[in-house]
């Protein structure tokens, strides 16, 4: 028996459309928030490393350990584990809203790590040259560090986005909606 595509669309079209929108919403919002948190975290990780501009053993080590812990928890466990936290932040633990918080908690440290790797690739000599020219540290961070690692950053973000899409599928478990839920 052949299932005709227009028949399928007639039956499921609107649901699919809604689910697609939800997925885009979830991924879009969580990605944006994760970048906003992850990029500065990545920069902080690089700067507080021993021998770097703001070398700070404690900040670096705490960040390092926290990121490692969160990164090693499978998303599905993290999702349930932080339910109370999610409720506190957005007032609900279900729906698109309820799933964005765990997605951000999951992705931001991942992005921070990827950013760290990307930023560490920047030649130390170039940073030094700018320091020697009397440029302010914040300018060096933005105009040299981030600029020079732009392509690695974008590559990292692509990888993070794919991970994020994968994780968003599990959002169905808390009624997050999205394409994954519809496929059940």
């Amino acid at each position: 028996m052949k299932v005709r595509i227009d028949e399928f669309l007639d039956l499921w079209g609107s649901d699919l459309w809604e689910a697609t929108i939800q997925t885009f919403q979830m991924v879009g919002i969580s990605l944006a928030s994760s970048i906003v948190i992850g990029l500065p975290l990545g920069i902080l990780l690089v700067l507080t490393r021993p021998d770097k501009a703001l070398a700070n053993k404690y900040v670096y080590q705490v960040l390092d350990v926290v990121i490692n812990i969160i990164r090693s928890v499978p998303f599905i466990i993290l999702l349930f584990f932080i339910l109370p936290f999610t409720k506190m932040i957005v007032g609900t633990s279900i729906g698109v809203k309820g799933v964005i918080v765990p997605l951000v908690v999951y992705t931001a440290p991942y992005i921070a790590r990827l950013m760290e790797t990307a930023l560490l690739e920047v030649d130390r000599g170039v940073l030094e040259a700018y320091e020697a020219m009397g440029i302010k540290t914040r300018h060096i961070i933005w105009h040299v560090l981030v600029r020079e690692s732009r392509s690695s950053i974008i590559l990292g973000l692509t990888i993070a986005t794919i991970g994020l899409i994968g994780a968003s599928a599990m959002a169905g478990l808390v009624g997050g909606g999205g394409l994954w839920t519809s496929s059940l």
Partner: protein
Amino acid sequence: MIELVGISKTFTAKKGSIHALKNVSISVKKGEIYGVIGYSGAGKSTLIRCVNLLEKPNTGSVKVNNVDLTKLSTGKLRESRGKIGMIFQGFNLLKTATVFENIALPLKLTGLSQNEVERRVTKYLSIVGREEKHHAYPSELSGGQKQRVAIARALAHEPEVLLSDEATSALDPDTTEAILDLLLKINKEFGITILLITHEMNVIQRICDRVAVMENGEVIEDGTTREIFTSPKHQTTKRFINSLFSHQIPDKILLNLNKTGQVATLSFFGESSGEPALALVSKKFDVYPNILSGSITRLKEESFGQLLIHLKGDANEIEKALRFLEQQHVHVEGVRVSESKNRRIS
């Protein structure tokens, strides 16, 4: 212009500490080119990085233009650093920026207006001879061209002092010559004081007015380039000079020669090279000079030559002949076999 007094720097690693600099003092006068030469690990790189406090010395004071940089606040230090240009062995240009942007960006970040930035970029690119390369990326340039851009970037801040951290070490001999000429031009035309470090004696020979020789974190010898070339005292200094004049004579031959007379190195400068001193010697005294090896080279302002000669004859006559040569402003240094065993002749 640059006064480093009693600089010490110790790096502490897990396996113990390294004394990179031990009580080093150098003083660079306004408008001169001062060279610091030493082998790898001598501490010269740490020394030059102490001048703009990229490396903070443990003790000692760093004065540039009579301001003690070690006592400045972060903000003031940044301001002072603007007056100290620096160029590097690895050029340190932004890969993601064109030649123009590479020079313009730091200027913009120090708060200059767009017009001023453009004026300076154009001006200094033409000074280093790279005006046609505005839109090229560093990856499209050769090493020499990159160094020119880096020099333009440093000059664009209109500094009083230029620090050169092995700027020519990564370049081939021809390009090195061209970059050295450029540094000389900058020094002459803008009166910028240059402090450079290098491990190549020909850099010192070509452009430096004064030179310090470093070894194991200490300055072992310093003076004008001429003094260092004519009468090097320390073994390391002699080795550096020998890298330019390599008079390699096998010990066996030397031993035979010493039986019949004496072998000596004669060093002479421009004014004394005109006189036929050696010919006079053979006429005036009962000796037979024989030139074993010789070469002549240019220092910054005058020519400098070295001859390795053998004087055959009576010991007394040889002594008189050598003294006569010294009166002719020729620097004479005897070569003894006992000293020269298993090493190069100095």
